[in-house]
């Protein structure tokens, strides 16, 4: 595939990492337009949506993995957003299966998704009132010791 053409249609950095892998780094505001151009370019399948918590830089990195069925190339689109009041735009109308990935993003990272009616609804967790659990500052051992009893152990091995 012609990488030059991809550079022309997307505002951002395009890098061919290896055969069948393209890394695309875009600005927060350009996510939807970049994904829109990629869809027109032939990236017709959404593989996953997730985020990485770069706590030292006070940023979340939102990651979209797309696949082009015709060109057999995986594109990894990444955008950094601030960690304070994180918000992104929904891509549900571009890729229908994005809905639950976005719901998961809100639940696990606290990233609000504008335009997704289900964002904020519980998906995998039930009655969760703590920090979003996949954030790096969520201490799972502290949570477990506060919420669950320690396992009863025998005094000796008889």
């Amino acid at each position, binding site marked *: 595939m012609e990488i030059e053409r991809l550079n022309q249609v997307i505002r951002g950095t395009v890098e061919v990492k290896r055969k069948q892998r393209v890394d695309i780094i875009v600005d927060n505001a350009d996510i939807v337009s970049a994904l829109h151009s990629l869809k027109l370019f032939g990236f017709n399948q959404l593989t*996953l949506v997730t985020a990485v918590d770069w706590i030292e830089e006070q940023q979340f990195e939102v990651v979209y993995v797309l696949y082009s069925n015709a060109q057999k190339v995986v594109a990894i689109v990444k955008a950094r957003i601030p960690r304070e009041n994180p918000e992104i735009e929904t891509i549900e109308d571009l*890729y229908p299966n994005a809905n639950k990935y976005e719901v998961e993003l809100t639940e696990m990272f606290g990233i609000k998704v504008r335009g997704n009616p289900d964002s904020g609804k*519980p*998906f995998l967790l039930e009655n969760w009132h703590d920090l979003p659990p996949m954030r790096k500052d969520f201490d799972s051992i502290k949570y477990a010791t506060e919420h669950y009893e320690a396992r009863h152990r025998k005094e000796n091995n008889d």
Partner: protein
Amino acid sequence: MTKEYELNIGPNHPGIPGNFSLHLELEGDTIVKANGDSGYLHRAFGKLMEHRLYLQNVALIPRICVIEPDINEAVYAMAIEELMGVKIPERAKYIRTIILEAARVNAYLFGLGIFAAATLGLYTLMQWAVGDRDYMIDLFASLTGARIYHMFIWPGGVRRDLPPKFEEDILDWVKFIKDKLPDYDAVFFKNSMFLHRTKGLATITKEEALSMGVTGPNLKATGVAQDVRKDEPYAAYPYLDFEIPTMTEGDAWARTIIRRLELELSLNLIEQAVKKMPKGPVWTKMPNPFKWYVPRGDAYARVESSGGEYGFYFVSDGGAKPYRVYVRGASMPHMYPLAEKLLIGQKLSDAPQILGSLNICPPEIDR
């Protein structure tokens, strides 16, 4: 006069393939709205892996999915090998292929057996398939020391070479299953009850499937020959000769028949791999577990599982533990939104067949 009402089916229901439930709104016995409810199996594998060393994670990851655990080991190893720039020995590639294909056959046997028994009441296939799968589990025990969670594929290759006589044993097993296939056909795939209940049921078109991110047998049943083994060959697949089976019907029947064809393909691939396998080392030495650092970067490793594309999005910050791992299960788009949309307008009694034909594996959704 019909009356609208709500009904929950699952998580403990024979028609539900695993630990999730469905919240249905019905009018008479026609489904008006279907909402999936997941989370019964959520164990936060991504978070658990962030707290463990690279070697410790090898023991953790197969536990994501019971039916087909080996794919997890393979993608984990492939992601680390990509980031570290490690090349694995030729013989290890073939051993990986044999394990992955045998695991795929096991997954199909188990899945088809459960589908036939739990949703259609055809218990004979389940008795046979689960029994025949058990012979391979015994072979896995002789190869890896474990029946279900093998922890055999690991970064750098595989743990050990094959035990003596293993090649003969696995070829015997392949021949045994191949001889059994006509019986399977007679008792299930040509059974008129199966045909009546699945032909024309819950049809998906090619465009719908592609737009929703559907992969694997569910996509192949609509006529798209998309398969990671062909599109981005890993392990020893580039050296093997095979064609991806496709069908054009896109209904529950075609999705089941595709699994039957895939089963046969996997058996052929095992035979080819065993015959072509070269001699040599099986492991590229990896660092001491306590000084094992993976260079900073990210990788997306993917394989073809029995359900479709299965992958890890893997991020390393250069430390001794993974920084972030996201598990991409094939079943996530098959449940949300595909199953929720397919169920609308169907009869309640067809719901188990639709869910069963999609082969949804809840642990891949919950993780």
